[in-house]
């Protein structure tokens, strides 16, 4: 019995790594562009359909397909900024209008996917071997996703801390007017942030493709998951999102073993609500009083 829980714990941690990447993207976009990207999971879904099309229909090697999905999804991010988000910012739309626009985008993307790829599950159908460490079995695909996510997060940390562009992104998140006075063009930084966020959806799609089969409503649950993690960690707080991702990952997979997958979602949400009742600002958030 013990091995079962240990297995669940380890797989929860592995899953947490990819969730951390998902939450990072959403957090970054919220922190910089000040928009809740409700279609973030749907973008991951688009990336997975792209990988599926390249691998299954065009017979391109999976590694190459994954590499192609990165820049393509980065461009999708830029296009979203241009077509959806920039007009909202220019019109100084209120937060409700912004939410409605992004919610509308999820409907567009999901239906576009359904028209293009149909409602069936689309998977790569590849079987990677299991790795056994003592009594614990790890799925290779989960392990690759976890390590890849950690390396990416490390790279993003260096990018945000060591480069002028990263510094500009963090400055804009803290004080837009002050950043403008330093010579930083906010509009350019918004585009770059959406491009980075888009690249991340492409990368997450690459990690998810061997693990999950994709369907037109696949993205919704991941948008929800990312949003819960971001709020749990403290919205806009990157470290909080990182911790929140592992909390949610571990709670979900351990309670799935203890009960069932459906009950696990309930347990996760109950824990989430309990945390928010005690700390409305999230685990590491700062309470803003106006």
């Amino acid at each position, binding site marked *: 019995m013990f091995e079962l829980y240990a297995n669940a714990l380890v797989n929860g941690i592995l899953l947490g790594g990819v969730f951390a990447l998902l939450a990072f993207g959403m957090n970054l976009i919220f922190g910089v562009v000040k928009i809740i990207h409700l279609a973030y999971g749907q973008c991951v879904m688009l990336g997975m359909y792209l990988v599926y099309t390249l691998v299954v229909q065009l017979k391109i090697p999976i590694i190459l397909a994954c590499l192609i999905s990165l820049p393509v999804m980065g461009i999708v991010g830029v296009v979203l900024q241009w077509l959806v988000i920039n007009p909202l910012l220019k019109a100084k739309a209120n937060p409700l209008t912004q939410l409605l626009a992004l919610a509308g985008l999820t409907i567009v993307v999901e239906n576009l996917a359904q028209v293009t790829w149909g409602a069936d599950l689309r998977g790569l159908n590849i079987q990677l071997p299991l790795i056994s460490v003592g009594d614990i079995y790890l799925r290779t695909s989960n392990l690759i996703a976890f390590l890849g996510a950690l390396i990416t997060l490390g790279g993003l940390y260096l990018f945000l801390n060591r480069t002028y562009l990263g*510094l500009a992104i963090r*400055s804009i998140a803290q004080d837009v007017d002050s950043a*403008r006075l*330093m010579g930083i063009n906010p509009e350019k930084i918004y585009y770059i942030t959406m491009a980075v966020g888009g690249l991340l959806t492409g990368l997450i799609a690459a990690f998810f493709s061997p693990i999950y089969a994709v369907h037109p409503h696949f993205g919704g649950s991941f948008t929800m998951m990312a949003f819960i993690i971001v709020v749990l960690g403290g919205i806009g707080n990157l470290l909080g999102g990182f911790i929140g991702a592992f909390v949610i990952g571990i709670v979900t997979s351990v309670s799935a073993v203890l009960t069932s997958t459906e009950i696990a979602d309930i347990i996760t949400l109950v824990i989430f609500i309990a945390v928010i009742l005690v700390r409305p600002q999230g685990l590491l958030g700062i309470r803003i009083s106006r």
Partner: protein
Amino acid sequence: MLEVKNIDVFYGEFQALFDVSLKISEGETVITVGPNGAGKSTLLKTISGLLRPRSGSITFFGQRIDGLPAHKIVELGIAHVPEGGRLFPQLTVWENLKVGSYLKKSRQDFPLAVKEIYQLFPVLDERKRQLADTLSGGERQMLAIARCLMSKPKLILLDEPSSGLAPRVVSRVFEFVHQIKSQGYAILMVEQNVRKALQLSDRAYLMESGRMVKEGPKQSFLEDPYIKKVYIGL
């Protein structure tokens, strides 16, 4: 070097500046005094491009700059230190200085420039790894001014550098402004602490209810009975 000509500035329907004009020559220190709400900060924000005038013109070395976005105006050499410093609270002292050198032309000189700043303010060197949020009021103001120097400006706009500081700290901030002035930067300062600021300046303007009501060399301001009574309190 800077010429503001007959500008009108609005916040929505509310007019904040009426037909305001002002001139600054190279190396000159100019102070604008006036009560709260006279439009002094609005004037600085309009020059640095955070606000746009509805009419009138602003030229810098003969080039029209009204209508340019703020990040283009910094590039031309106008640095604006807003009221309260507006540091990036979650960046360290060093990172704040580094963002100050964001402009392409100032990046290369950053290591040297930051050394000079640390020599001028050893306390910033001691606290370079601390978040700006953890600094005292005086240190924040010093860092805000130091940060604007990183962009190698020709003209510095200082908005109420002494606001909210203890009297002893105020003297240190003014001492620093004096040091900058002696290095040849042109300065346009807005200040409530009229006497101290006037002593630093070459020329002054008086602004009331969004209009320029008086302009002259510092001596004429120090001796003006109205200004003495209302703003200096002697």
